[in-house]
């Protein structure tokens, strides 16, 4: 209302302070709106239906919006004790990732952790555990971690702005399911003035929102205090993490995976000694996530390859959640920290070794001592690339401000101008001695300004630092040996531990053996001595030992478990034939048919015998369904060592053995004809199944009579409120049953029925299909939970596999030795299980789009590195596009801004899985490393991509419309294949292949719609199928030596090869552009006959040109006499003079006239002016007179003056 811009000052609204209006308002405010005074009621017309159509539309819209919010309900499969949440901390180098992790760990566990290498698991709350993983700048690591992350903490250096790594990681996340992403701004203390800080925050926030979603959380870590973030801010961040909810991601939900936090080499040392390059058996440890894992499945380790798991076993949780959930907060003991790769962990013991935890403070002290104090040396330790590599990569600028740009960079910049995305701005950071890939958006000018300012600042500092840095580098080189020493304990943290462990093992050796005794079936066999010994040992052993023994005693080893159990079960059945209740408890239990034993007395014996017989013949179902664990069972093992009688001691008669034939070559028929064991003539048999029909006797709880009675009990009592009469059902008269159990049951039953009735009455009103579906899912989830609640873990694993949240140990044989030798805990080891057919390789059809920030289009048949499913692999894609008739036409290059199809030979992955493509993994050559993204459309065993093929021929004999063409084919047979095909000339004359000619091989006769010229070129357009190259080359980046893991190089592109080898193709001379000689055409000759027939307009005209005048008509030249010439000259002179004079006079006259006109104009103007004035005077006088007259008339003076 009172905007500053509005020029017209408006009056402000003044509230009435008194009067009836104010009174009314006051009353209304006090009472609220009176009950009767509803808007709708007060003004019904305003809310009446104006238009039925409009109403329908609004209703539809409302419903649409409502339906949009629905997700397809899924069965809730989250385990009771979920695995730790994977928190991946990403960001460009030197942005504060390790510091943040360290601070968070300190915040949650009150422990300090020196070096963050490998996953760090902590207990963060009563129900939540966290696993922190640091993600370095390597794109391999970024891809792998994006696939397993639940939460991503994206660190952004606010003083610098966004870097390309951030956007790359966001893109990777988008492709592989979008985990929760939280941004964290660091280096905020570098801003001097508050306004710049605020502006930067806002700018970064909005850019972050466009990338993630509107309103995504962005955290600010304002500054460092003693090289740590402020406690309160870290605490807040921790709170956010610990209450965060996560969305289920499709790939993670459907695949079990383990982020390995511990690796042990199990290979026999002797074998390693003999052949250091032998394949290794490795056990990997970690929490199982995703979904249930079956033993002996196929897994993929990104960066290593596909492997079969030899054995999976679960271990006690090394970082368990607190057991009692009563207290409000965790106590010090429960704040566990587990990071074996960093050298910290709880008590872990397994098949290989026993590890004892040293108190965390102790470890820290050691590590703190080791840590060098100077930041420079520390940063050198932290990096993975060798000093040489860094030296070679770094460029020392000699003059301040002189940025040395290579030719490649110049080219890049030129191209970048075309793309719409952010431009990469390589900024040399003197502190970190690396190039930072700043993401510069063209639209924001502030950024570039500020950065340039910064640069200036930096430049000033640079000169100072220059000398320091070089000195530092030299120092670093000298310290190289020292560094190596320091690094050793880092790369192999558990070494020290192992020693302790071995000692411990030696002590406990006998303890370990104890369970073997316990395991033996008959404990009585044990001699007394042994028992004594055992007891002594048990006393001596600490808690773990006891636990171990108990575990072993209580349960049987998983390997021989099922068989033994089976036999036990059988025994049970035999011994407990009449005991029905016992058997029911078994899952695969043997029920008695209720009527089966209620025959005559004599039959009972027979039936029980039959039952026993059947029991013996029934195979162990559990074994059949869930497997025994060893494959040998179902691969038929028939040995050919049958003893047939020998013929003459030499030959054996080969006869199909009856029994064997039945087994191996039996008839494949599912028809089941029951044996005639039961005689259905007997009345007893009839009786036995009579209750199976609705006409038979029902169960007690379903019988109509009892149900009626129950209803009476339930609803019989009621009090008539009007009369006050109390009606009692029969329930009152029924004798009270003494047993509490039955009473309780009844009460529960009553409650249930009441609830059911209530639900029926009230829930059904607005129950939709969606609600029903949800309810079904809920029920299934409850069933899933309830089924195995009280089954012990060993048994449960047999049924459902290892459930997520368990700490498992995967034993993987035949891993390449480089995995162990070049193991670097900074690189994550992920074990992702594969689905049923995901181990196969086949053709994949995908939809692909070149990333709009990637600055060059992709070429068909150039190898590309894809990240699809768990895998990263190099393959050769063929790009294609679908024509209007469904033909897949090969493209040479991907379109600029359009989707296209891509076919590859690669691992079969479910349809709808996203993928991303990178051109090379080594280094950061391109500005934006992600080349393309897309989705798997189709898996097919055959592909039909075609490319256009034009066959060219030349006419060598031309008749009227028929021509003989040569040079298109080479044999008669080829022509025969193309008979009837349509052909065309360049000028557009269409034709058809007729028949092959005999003499020049491959020539043929063809007819055209017009006569050809000898200079015409004839071509045949055809489509040639292209086969997809079979290249599937898994990226084995984890096998690279330490420090070079980000430099994996696969197959090179042709262009790269040519560049590297310096090869240049010689172009085809015909394809080069050149100036064409102008063509001359002969004159058009029209036959005389035709000329005659033409109308006059089109007739060639006969008129002659001017040069053709005949001699007689040509006039002769006049030659003058000298006198005549003189006269003529004089005349010319006179006329010239006259002309000049007259011209002069003319101009003079014209000027004069002009002046005259001007004067006239002026006079006219003056005249007008005068007249105007005179008129004015006159009118004024007239006006005054009039006025006077009026005045006088008003005064009532004399009428006429």
């Amino acid at each position, binding site marked *: 209302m009172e905007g500053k811009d509005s020029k017209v000052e408006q009056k402000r609204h003044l509230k009435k302070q008194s009067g009836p209006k104010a009174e009314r308002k006051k009353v209304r405010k006090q009472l609220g709106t009176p009950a009767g005074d509803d808007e709708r009621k007060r003004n019904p017309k305003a809310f009446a239906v104006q238009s039925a159509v409009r109403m329908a539309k609004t209703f539809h819209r409302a419903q649409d919006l409502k339906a949009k919010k629905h997700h397809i309900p899924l069965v809730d499969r989250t385990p009771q004790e979920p695995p730790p949440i994977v928190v991946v901390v990403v960001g460009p180098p030197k942005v504060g990732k390790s510091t943040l992790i360290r601070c968070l760990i300190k915040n949650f566990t009150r422990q300090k952790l020196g070096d963050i290498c490998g996953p760090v698991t902590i207990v963060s709350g009563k129900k939540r555990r966290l696993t922190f993983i640091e993600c370095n700048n390597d794109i391999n690591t970024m891809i792998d971690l994006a696939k397993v992350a639940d939460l991503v903490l994206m660190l952004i250096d606010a003083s610098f702005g966004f870097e390309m790594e951030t956007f790359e990681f966001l893109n990777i996340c988008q492709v592989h399911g979008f985990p929760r992403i939280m941004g964290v701004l660091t280096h905020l203390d570098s801003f001097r003035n508050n306004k710049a800080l605020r502006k930067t925050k806002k700018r970064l926030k909005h850019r972050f929102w466009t990338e993630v979603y509107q309103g995504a959380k962005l955290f600010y870590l304002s500054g460092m205090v003693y090289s740590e973030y402020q406690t309160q801010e870290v605490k807040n961040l921790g709170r956010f993490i610990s209450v965060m909810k996560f969305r289920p991601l499709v790939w993670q939900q459907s695949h079990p995976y383990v982020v390995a936090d511990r690796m042990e080499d199990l290979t026999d040392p002797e074998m390693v000694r003999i052949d250091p390059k032998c394949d290794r058996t490795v056990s990997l440890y970690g929490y199982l996530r995703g979904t249930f894992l079956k033993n002996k499945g196929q897994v993929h380790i990104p960066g290593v390859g596909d492997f079969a798991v030899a054995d999976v076993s679960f271990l006690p949780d090394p970082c368990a959640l607190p057991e009692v959930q009563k207290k409000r907060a965790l106590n010090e003991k429960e704040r566990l920290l587990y990071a074996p790769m960093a050298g910290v962990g709880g008590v872990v013991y397994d098949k290989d070794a026993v590890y004892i935890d040293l108190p965390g403070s102790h470890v820290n002290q050691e590590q703190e001592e080791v840590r060098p104090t100077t930041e420079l040396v520390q940063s050198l330790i932290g990096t993975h690339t060798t000093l040489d590599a860094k030296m070679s990569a770094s460029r020392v600028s000699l003059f301040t401000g002189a940025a040395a740009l290579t030719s490649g960079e110049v080219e890049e910049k030129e191209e970048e101008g075309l793309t719409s995305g952010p431009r990469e701005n390589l900024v040399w950071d003197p502190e970190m001695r690396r190039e930072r890939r700043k993401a510069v958006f063209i639209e924001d000018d502030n950024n570039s300004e500020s950065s340039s300012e910064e640069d200036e600042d930096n430049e000033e500092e640079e000169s100072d630092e220059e000398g320091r840095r070089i000195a530092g580098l030299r120092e670093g080189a000298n310290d190289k040996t020292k560094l190596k020493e320091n690094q050793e304990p880092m790369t192999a943290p558990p070494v020290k531990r192992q020693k302790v462990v071995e000692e411990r093992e030696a002590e406990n050796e006998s303890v370990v053996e104890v369970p073997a005794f316990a395991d033996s079936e008959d404990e009585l066999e044990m001699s007394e001595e042994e028992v004594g010994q055992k007891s002594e040992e048990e006393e001596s052993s600490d808690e773990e030992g006891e636990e171990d023994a108990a575990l072993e005693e209580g349960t049987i080893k998983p390997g021989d478990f099922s068989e033994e159990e089976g036999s036990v079960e059988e025994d049970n059945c035999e011994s407990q034939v009449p005991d029905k209740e016992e058997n029911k408890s078994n899952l695969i239990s043997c029920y008695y048919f209720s009527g089966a034993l209620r025959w005559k007395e004599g039959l009972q014996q027979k039936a029980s015998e039959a039952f026993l017989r059947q029991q013996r013949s029934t195979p162990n179902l559990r074994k059949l369904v869930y497997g025994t664990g060893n494959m040998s069972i179902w691969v038929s093992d028939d040995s050919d060592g049958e003893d047939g009688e020998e013929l003459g001691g030499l030959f054996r008669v080969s006869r199909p053995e009856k029994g064997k034939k039945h087994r191996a070559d039996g008839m494949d028929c599912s028809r089941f004809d029951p044996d005639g064991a039961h005689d259905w003539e007997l009345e007893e048999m009839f009786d036995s199944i009579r209750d199976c029909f609705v006409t038979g006797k029902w169960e007690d709880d379903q019988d109509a009579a009892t149900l009626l009675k129950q209803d009476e009990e339930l609803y019989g009592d009621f009090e008539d409120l009007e009369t006050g009469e109390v009606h009692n059902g029969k329930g009152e008269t029924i004798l009270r049953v003494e047993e509490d159990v039955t009473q309780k049951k009844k009460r529960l039953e009553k409650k249930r029925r009441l609830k059911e009735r209530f639900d029926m009455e009230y829930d059904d009103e607005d129950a939709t299909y969606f609600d029903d579906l949800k309810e079904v899912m809920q029920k299934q989830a409850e069933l899933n939970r309830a*089924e195995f609640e009280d089954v012990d873990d060993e048994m449960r694993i047999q049924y459902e596999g290892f459930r997520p949240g368990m700490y498992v140990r995967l034993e993987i044989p035949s891993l390449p030795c480089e995995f162990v030798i070049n193991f670097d805990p900074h690189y994550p080891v992920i074990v992702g299980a594969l689905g049923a057919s995901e181990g196969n390789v086949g053709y994949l059809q995908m939809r692909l789009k070149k990333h709009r920030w990637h600055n060059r289009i992709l070429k068909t048949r150039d190898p590309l590195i894809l990240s699809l499913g768990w895998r990263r692999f190099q393959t050769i894609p063929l790009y294609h596009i679908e024509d209007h008739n469904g033909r897949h036409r090969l493209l040479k290059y991907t379109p600029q801004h359009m989707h296209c199809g891509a076919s590859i030979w690669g691992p079969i992955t479910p349809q709808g899985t996203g993928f991303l493509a990178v051109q090379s993994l080594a280094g950061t050559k391109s500005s934006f490393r992600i080349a393309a993204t897309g989705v798997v459309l189709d898996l097919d065993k055959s592909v039909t991509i075609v490319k256009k093929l034009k066959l060219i021929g030349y006419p060598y004999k031309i008749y009227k419309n028929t021509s003989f063409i040569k040079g298109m084919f080479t044999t008669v047979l080829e022509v025969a294949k193309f008979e009837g095909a349509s052909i065309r000339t360049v000028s557009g004359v269409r034709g058809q292949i007729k028949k092959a000619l005999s003499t020049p091989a491959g020539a043929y006769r063809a007819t055209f719609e017009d006569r050809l010229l000898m200079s015409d070129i004839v071509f045949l357009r055809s489509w040639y199928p292209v086969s997809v190259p079979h290249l599937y080359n898994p990226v084995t980046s984890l096998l690279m030596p330490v420090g070079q893991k980000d430099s994996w190089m696969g197959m090179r592109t042709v262009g790269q090869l040519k560049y590297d080898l310096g090869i240049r193709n010689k172009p085809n001379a015909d394809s080069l552009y050149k100036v064409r000689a102008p063509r001359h055409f002969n004159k058009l000759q029209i036959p005389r006959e035709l000329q005659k027939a033409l109308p006059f307009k089109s007739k060639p005209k006969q008129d002659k040109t001017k040069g053709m005048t005949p001699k007689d008509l040509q006039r002769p030249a006049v030659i003058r006499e000298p006198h005549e010439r003189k006269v003529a000259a004089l005349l010319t002179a006179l006329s010239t003079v006259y002309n000049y004079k007259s011209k002069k006079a003319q101009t003079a006259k014209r000027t004069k006239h002009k002046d005259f006109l001007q004067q006239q104009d002026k006079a006219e103007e003056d005249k007008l002016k005068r007249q105007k004035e005179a008129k004015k005077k006159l009118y004024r006088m007239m006006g005054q007179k009039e006025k006077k007259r009026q005045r006088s008339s008003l005064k009532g003076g004399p009428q006429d003056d």
Partner: protein
Amino acid sequence: MASQGLNYDGCNFFRQRLVLSTLSGKRVKITNIRSKDDNPGLRDFEASFIRLLDKVTNGTRIEINQTGTVLFYQPGLLIGGEVEHDCNTQRSVGFYLEALLMLAPFMKMPLKAVLRGVTNDPTDPSVDQLKYSAVPLMRKFGIDGLELKIVKRGMAPGGGGEVLFTCPVRKTLVSVNLTDPGKIKRIRGIAYSVRVSPQMANRLVDSARGILNKFIPDIYIYTDHMKGDKSGKSPGFGLTLVAETLNGTFLSAEQVSTPQGQGEPVLPEDMGRNCAKHLLEEIYRGGSIDSANQSLALLYMTLRQQDVCKALLGPLSPYTVKSLDMCPPGYTQPGHVILVTLLT
């Protein structure tokens, strides 16, 4: 990279092996197929079966050695679509159809198969039985919109029948909980006769009703007499009975006359009684899934989502036991829980 294949000996459970291989994507090598037999190698009906599999898949690689005793099968992808197949008359259409039932929901395109051959013979479950017992069972797993139609009826040995089978695509099957079969509410059936007197069917119905009427009055047995070109090439008759329970369990039994020129002819009265007794036997054996479809149900249970799935089965038929045995450990997806309870 590629998952390792499986090796088998002998031609037993041929269909199961190939079907499971196709579903799991694992290649299979079967050796010593009737190697000791006088007439070694694959039979015509098995070859026909392989051809059918080839039709419904894409990219299948099949290698058979010269004597036909070794088969290598690398499964392709299940494509589906419209398929026509002339089944070998050595076995009835049921032989082929059973495998198709297992594969059909997992195709890429809805399957529409026209199978020609013998529709009813005494060795295999007939199309009628599958129609009345397997199709309702599949519906329980969420596969609705199935159609199994007998266009022409052809009895063994001549054949000449035609069956139309259409099945929609279901990527995920519903978890079922079939622990309570419920009581039988009605009995239905179909008595068919071709190229014999239509009276045969009536005689079958009468004799079967004679026994079943003692239990339940709600019995209706349709008679189906096909004439002309719909009646196939050989004479014969048969009876299929289905008992339906309150909870939607279908228990079936069937009897088919012996093929012309093989074995001794049977009286329709005897057959009707026998069939009714078989049904009673089936009811006696109990369970929520009748013995002819146990293996089908168990397969679906393994291929469904990872939820608890329960079924109450009667004593397992030998075929089911073997097919369970076939199912390689680790074949089921992780988290699959199948609970089978046995009635004895």
